[in-house]
């Protein structure tokens, strides 16, 4: 019993540590003063300024656009890659898997600067790919693909090979068999990979920081430059909005999955 209370207290302390800074950001986003220690009354001014800030708006746009496009392309390339790798001979597969792990294990900063060197090298010689939206997108796709592959491969391992061959024996074309038989079975892995890619891309700072160009900042880059300029209540307002969005989405996903569970249990 004492033990259990101790456990609760410990958890509470940890949660305090984890949440106090966030809660304080949220509370002070309503503070009618730039001060972060004194409360000067309630205001929605920072929210209004945040919405009107063209830099925040364009950063939001770039963040979402890049996350969606990068996740989509990475999922397509990654899924096909996983299927191909799965069918390879062992030694070949090992080589390629080691390569696939490289961007996952490599420090972000090294991936970032290596891509930066590449893009600048290309753009200074061929006058394509000048740093900006395009290069940032390519970088995001690059670091996303391995995560998609790593999510899809386990599903492929569980796959029953005979099913596909049975479909072919029954007269399905390879593509038809792929879409009707294989795809539905590895779909959960693909979805996981896509979601993972999307969130990684949303949250990325380091690689974006090095691969972006004139006038293109995502939210992380913007927050970094704003934070370097000092305390800015607009960031507090932005944090609040992002936090509420994340909370809402997670609750939604959780509610859905628990509903599924209930349904399954009743069935």
């Amino acid at each position, binding site marked *: 019993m004492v033990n259990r209370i101790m456990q609760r207290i410990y958890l509470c302390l940890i949660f305090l540590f984890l949440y106090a800074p966030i809660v304080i950001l949220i509370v002070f986003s309503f503070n009618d003063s730039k001060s972060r220690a004194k409360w000067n009354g309630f205001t929605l001014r920072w929210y209004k300024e945040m919405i009107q800030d063209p830099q925040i708006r364009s950063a939001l746009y770039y963040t979402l656009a890049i996350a969606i496009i990068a996740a989509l392309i990475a999922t397509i390339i990654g899924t096909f890659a996983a299927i191909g790798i799965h069918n390879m001979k062992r030694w070949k597969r090992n080589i390629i898997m080691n390569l696939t792990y490289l961007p996952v294990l490599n420090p972000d900063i090294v991936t970032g600067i290596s891509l930066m060197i590449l893009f600048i090298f290309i753009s200074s010689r061929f006058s*394509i790919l*000048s740093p900006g939206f395009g290069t940032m997108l*390519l970088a995001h796709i690059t670091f996303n693909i391995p995560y998609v592959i790593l999510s899809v491969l386990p599903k492929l391992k569980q796959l029953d090979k005979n099913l596909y061959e049975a479909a072919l024996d029954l007269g399905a074309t390879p593509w038809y068999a792929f879409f009707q038989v294989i795809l539905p079975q590895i779909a959960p892995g693909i979805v996981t990979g896509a979601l993972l890619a999307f969130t990684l891309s949303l949250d990325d700072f380091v690689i974006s920081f090095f691969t972006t*160009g004139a006038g*293109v900042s995502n939210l992380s880059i913007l927050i970094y430059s704003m934070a370097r*300029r*000092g305390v800015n209540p607009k960031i507090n307002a932005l944090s609040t909005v992002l936090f509420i969005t994340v909370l809402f989405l997670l609750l939604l996903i959780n509610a859905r999955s628990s509903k599924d569970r209930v349904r399954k249990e009743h069935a």
Partner: protein
Amino acid sequence: MKKSVILSILSVFLITIFLGGCGSKDQTTLNVYNWGDYIDSSVIKQFEKETGIKVNYDTFATNEEMYVKINKGNASYDIAIPSDYMIEKMIKEGLVEKIDFNNIPNYQYIEDRFKNLEFDPTNEYSVPYMWGTLGILYNKKMVDEPVDSWDILWNPKYEKQILMLDSQRDSLAVALKKLNYSMNSTNDAELEAAKNALIEQRPLVLAYVGDEVKDKMIGEEAALAVVWGGDAVTMHRENPDLEYVIPKEGTNLFVDSIVIPSTAKHKAEAEKFIDFLCRTDIAFKNTDYIGYSTPHMEARKQLDPELANSPIAYPEPEDLENAEIFIDLGTYIEQYNRVWTEIKSH
């Protein structure tokens, strides 16, 4: 198998080129690269409204950062606002374009003493935007002795209450001036002495900062800071306990000027923007908001006379006798780079 490899190589290239193309899609967007917090943001909106040209606004914290981005980073900015020595370097290296002054009628309002300066002797590349000095800002409540020398930044009494600039030329200038050397020194021994002075000072320094210095000093997080005069004006407005001095050993006089980098894609629009910044009402708005001294005669006249005649913002030439303008050091800058990295890593 071979065919498919070729096909896939092709498709990757196509995606690459297509995506690469997305970034550089040509709308009339003007890419402006300026110091952080160095413009009244309503000015940008007004420009967009009046001309229909969209402005993409990016900021940098040091001249060096801007230089690397434009030179090595291939970023295509249409407007940049570096300082004197950096402009000199960029002219030498062909990184800036000549400006067609016929398109900048408002240039006539710029005071003559800011024209034909050493860094752009024939005045073909740059239009002065703001100018000022480097000095010490201190909080009257926290510093009780007279502040008149760079030496106070080495006073152990103010341990962890000193903010230095995270900018190599400026911080080294402070040390060089403290030691009574030129801030454009290209003497190894002098530079080494300056390096040792800054390393010795490290334990006293709270942080090496950029634009956040304003926030920190207004919030009384530190007692002393090395700041640019214009920022001192803004900070004094927010917190009257903050006073600015130009140390007796001498200081840096800087002129930040507008240039068009040679990678610019919208030169005509860029000139329109420069002319717009030189319009009296706009120049007034900017100098009023950012607090730096304007080289624009008419805008200065519109300022609060107390500010327009204040020795902090508009020091008389005799106050600036031992002030130096940074000059480009050519390849010797490598030594500065190395020394600065060593100081920061210590």
